[in-house]
């Protein structure tokens, strides 16, 4: 029941957005429409942009939602999505869960089992990994 409601809600949302997109397009000044952008020149395509615009629009909402659900503040999430290109938004949409996220400070291996500690210690010594700064690999 909940799932079908959600689906229905999604459908309504999508149709509304499509409608909004079309309205926005109609209000755009005609003179602007005729320039072919650098992006299009590189990709050598100048048609079917309307559909892609709508998809990108929906993906943006999705990515923003995902960032928020991973603990990013509302305004930060909005700003971050606004700063991404359409292609980047497409790469992130629906995949933030699976994508690796790197840290710049070497994080402590909290919760790592002793077994893993030993494995990493050994692989560090062998020079295959680089987890512990006190280990210097054997040559």
């Amino acid at each position, binding site marked *: 029941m909940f799932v079908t409601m959600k689906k229905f809600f999604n459908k309504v949302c999508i149709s509304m957005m499509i409608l909004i997109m079309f309205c926005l397009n109609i209000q755009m000044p*005609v*003179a602007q*429409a*005729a*320039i*072919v*952008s*650098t*992006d*299009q*020149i*590189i990709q050598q395509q*100048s*048609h079917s942009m309307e559909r892609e615009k709508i998809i990108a629009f929906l993906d943006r909402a999705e990515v923003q939602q995902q*960032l928020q*659900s*991973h*603990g*990013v*503040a509302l305004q*930060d999430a909005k*700003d*971050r999505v606004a*700063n*991404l*290109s359409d292609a*980047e938004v497409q*790469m*992130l949409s629906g995949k*933030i869960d699976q*994508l*690796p*996220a*790197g*840290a*710049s*400070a*070497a*994080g402590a*291996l909290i919760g*790592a089992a002793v077994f*893993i500690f030993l*494995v*990493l210690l050994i*692989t560090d010594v062998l*020079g*295959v*990994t*680089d*987890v512990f*700064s006190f280990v210097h*690999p054997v*040559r």
Partner: protein
Amino acid sequence: MMLNWAMIPVTPEQLSPKLFIPDKKGSLQIEMMAVPRQYGILAYPLAPQLADLLQEVSAGHPVLVFQNLALSWYPQWHYAVVVAYDLQNRAITLHSGLEAEHRIPLSTFEHTWARAGYWAMLALPPGNLPATAEETRLMKTAAILENAKHPQAAIVTYQAALKRWPDSLAARMGIGNSYYALKQIDKAGEAFYQATIDHPHAAVAFNNLAQVYLEQHQLNKAQNAIQQAIRLDGESPVYRETEAVIRKETDRQY
């Protein structure tokens, strides 16, 4: 650190809300690419080859790398900056975390780098081209900079690109489009005009030139340019649309 090198004064505290994802305790590669352009800096993804990475380092460009410091089934994702290497001793020096000079064997680095998909990027001030730059890859990053409301930085990049690839249509058009975005119509017109001279078979150049002529109220020139675009490529609905707008404007005048 990368941005500081590129002459952008910014602290980790300022970057954190733009990059960090609390639940994942880290930052995504795509966002690492996206942040520099907010400051008008060119973020360039390197080809996944050690040779390219080393070539950039010897050109004096610090390279941001993504690593998996642990194992594929127990990943520890990490960003570091390659600042130097020493082929004789087969060692590489990274700015890693708080360690300014983390020197490790090249082979260890290669293992950790390979496990993160050989991902590396540059952040260069506009006008500095990567030593290993490929035309299409560079044009894509410049176009993203252009669309990210930094057309001025994009222009400098396109101009540098034209010095290396004088026949680049994308660079020439990019200059025109960036000036157009800056509402400097006359300069945009000059770039598009030059594009039609250098690339007489590029319909896009004639189309964009026609649009500029239209906005400069030079309707005859606009007509000629758009007719040439359609002669070169009769398929594109965009050129037909430009033609229709020009015709409407011409009819209104008489």
